């Protein structure tokens, strides 16, 4: 009996849903092996990473707080990626969104009112969108690849952040610490579940996923994004401008990354500090793909990634697992997911070995 690899006539719907589960299962097995080889209790470590965040109710709030920015950014990225627009600089748009929102906070520091926080959120979205507008302009005007520009602008944004918190925005009362003033109550996210650290960002993340899902599946905008991504030539025939789609994809993904940025600044951080960039923008790329570029998928994928984050922290403290090992584990999730995806469109089929040896 021999096996031959062949393309499926139709993509397998079963594998479409099974592949992520398969990938997670293989990650668990390989992770356990890896940690064992490193001299740790492998199965225990995997259990700490995958299960403890779920079984320990005290960890649920951490999951919500970690998942929210990931979901918001990933939903935006999933729209861009569907249009074949490869925005990998969400981290930069996230930082600039936080900077723009913080700018509003600093200007309104001596004011009060319920309008301040919404204004900060709008400024955050505008900041992220404006920062994504740079690669959009370069791509549509000069055909500069957005993969390069979005990534490079991320590093520029980190320097902008450092300049501001070390320079003009440094709090006068911080005794030389590079940080802005602490946001006032009107400038901070309210907690939505009493007694926990779950803030307004979580319901916003859920709402963003639902709204974008509706828009992508029902609206002409979503249709345009999907058409341009799948068949650019057909999109032109259908009357959709490729350049306009690039603009829309980048502005939307930038705005959502910026929203996540200001939510994070006005929530867990409460101010801007040099440690603000925590790679949510990059992790969200994994979330977007794990969620199959579908807004609701991103919601679940964001929770899964949050589990590995929270669980990774648990394993670091309880099992003294090194930080890098947790990173390897998370990378394995993405790698195996992409590998498992292969079987959505391909399969192994048993074939009879050739027996006939004819004279030539």
């Amino acid at each position, binding site marked *: 009996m021999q096996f031959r690899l*062949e*393309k*499926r*006539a*139709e993509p397998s719907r079963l594998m479409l849903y099974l592949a992520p589960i398969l990938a997670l299962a293989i990650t668990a097995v390989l992770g356990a092996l890896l940690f064992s080889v490193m001299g740790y209790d492998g199965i225990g470590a995997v259990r700490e990473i995958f299960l403890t965040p779920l079984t320990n109710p005290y960890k649920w709030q951490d999951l919500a707080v970690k998942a929210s920015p990931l979901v918001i950014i990933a939903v935006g990225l999933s729209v861009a990626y569907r249009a074949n627009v490869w925005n990998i600089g969400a981290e930069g748009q996230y930082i600039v969104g936080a900077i723009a929102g913080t700018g509003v906070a600093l200007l309104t520091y001596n004011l009060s009112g319920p309008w301040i926080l919404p204004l900060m959120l709008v400024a955050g979205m505008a900041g992220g969108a404006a920062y994504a507008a740079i690669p959009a302009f370069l791509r549509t005007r000069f055909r500069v690849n957005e993969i390069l520009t979005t990534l490079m602008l991320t590093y520029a944004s980190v320097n902008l952040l450092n300049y501001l918190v070390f320079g003009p925005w440094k709090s006068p009362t911080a005794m030389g610490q590079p940080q802005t003033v602490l946001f006032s109550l009107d400038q901070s996210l309210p907690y939505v579940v009493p007694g926990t650290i779950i803030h307004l960002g979580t319901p916003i993340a859920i709402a963003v996923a639902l709204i974008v899902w509706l828009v992508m599946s*029902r*609206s*002409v*905008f979503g*249709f345009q994004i*999907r*058409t341009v991504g*799948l*068949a650019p*030539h*057909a999109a*032109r*025939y*259908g*009357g959709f*401008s490729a350049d306009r789609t690039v603009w829309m994809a980048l502005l939307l993904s930038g705005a959502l990354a910026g929203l996540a940025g200001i939510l994070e600044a006005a929530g867990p951080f409460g101010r801007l500090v040099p440690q603000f960039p925590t790679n949510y923008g990059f992790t969200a790329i994994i979330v977007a793909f794990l969620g199959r570029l579908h807004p609701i998928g991103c919601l679940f994928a964001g929770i899964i990634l949050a589990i590995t984050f929270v669980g990774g922290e648990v394993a670091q403290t309880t099992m003294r697992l090194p930080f890098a090992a947790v990173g390897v584990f998370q990378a394995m999730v993405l790698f195996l997911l992409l590998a498992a995806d292969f079987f959505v469109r391909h399969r192994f*089929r048993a074939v009879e070995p050739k027996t006939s040896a*004819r*004279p*030539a």
Partner: protein
Amino acid sequence: MSIDAPVRLALKGITKRFPGVLANDDVSFSVRAGEIHALLGENGAGKSTLVKMIYGIMQPDAGTIAWNGEIVTIANPKAARRLGIGMVFQHFSLFDAMTVLENIALGLDAKLTQRELEAKVRAVMSQYGLVLDPHRVVATLSVGERQRIEIVRALLLDPQLLIMDEPTSVLTPQEVEALFAVLRRLSAEGRSILYISHKLHEIRALCHTATILRGGKLVATLDPRVETPRSMAEKMIGASLKDISKDPNRRFGKERLLVSGLTTLAEDEFGVAIDSASFAVRAGEILGIAGVAGNGQNALLDALSGEILGTHGDAVRLDGTPIGLMGTTARRRLGLCAVPEERNGHAAVGDFSLSDNSVLTARDRLKMVLAGLINSGAAKTYTGKVIAQFAVKALGPHSTAGSLSGGNLQKYIMGREILQNPSVLVVSQPTWGVDAGAAAAIHQALVDLAAAGSAIVVISQDLDELLALSDTLLVINGGRLSKPLDVGAVSIEEIGLLMGGVHGTEDEVHIAPGGQIAVPA
């Protein structure tokens, strides 16, 4: 060829299976020495798979191939060539930047010096009357001349069997005649030819025997000279054919589409630009545009549909409204619909459902969008109507476009545009790769649409189709259009000259902008 000539190639029980399809099912036939044997069938009937096995590109799952009476396994094309089997592919494998001679040298298994090769090439060319300068760069040659390179390359190996895959689909009528003369000479020398085509007139004129395949099975082996094109076509599709019924007393109304001085830029360095095209199409009229592939047909369709814009609005007028600077959506709204040549990826999105593909072009005219949201119910209803009226074989509006066969997808696309009731319809290659039954249905739908008062432009490389369908004919060559020709009065020879008799024949013919034929001394 005589009846008692020895059998050169005999296939017995050849079967080949691909995932989800039986490409060849127990096919048996034989080719004698000196015989020109046609392999006939619709797209997907299994012709290409069969010859790929004869040429060693694929291996049969079951069955035997006998060569000169001996059963053989043809492991690869090199083995096939060693046996004396040559093949000329439909799509040439030539390097544009190299000369004819360099290209021939690259394809040879044997190593020859430049001088030996040139002598051999020249000998083969003079022996068969193939006119070709061995030192010309391929990029400067016409399609017919490129084909001659492939033929020379195959003949250098002194083949006993030459396989030709759809050789005439890119040739002008004059080039076809020249090719046939060569093939007849080869046959007279005792060489066999396996000739794959779906052009029935040509097969009647050229071939001694025809084997007809349908759905992977052999339907008949017959003498095409005593058959009619119609009888063969009916065997190919396994059903009787309908004629196009046109009202002989039809009259044309006012000019609906008026093109004057339409000029475009080439989209890339290999693209062809439209050079001041001018013509008019009246209500009820079908205007055909003939031409050899790659002479600006795609650019013309894109410029008319609005995918690429001309230089000024007046260049294209629809019922008097200048639309030259409008995009596809605006043009559709005003009544101009178009069907490009490439079905998958241009006229339709393969990964989308048919319903979504209806949204792609019919969303405005059929009010499938309300406040930015798509009314999927309306799209589904419309798609169901298209499927029913155009007899599209699909599971339903939810089927993906990519899962349909080429002919069915084309029927769906044509139906999607025709049922929008456009005032002007521009279609490119409406029946390319479509089976004869579906082609007849599409032709009738176009005639009926015109009879209802629409103006129709049909761009096609199939001259038979254009002559049957159109009232007026234009020829496109190098992005330029000829003057209008009356289909009833014009001769095939004249059309052939216009189509680009340019290359390879004795007279250089160009179409000047505005339609005059210029024949330089």
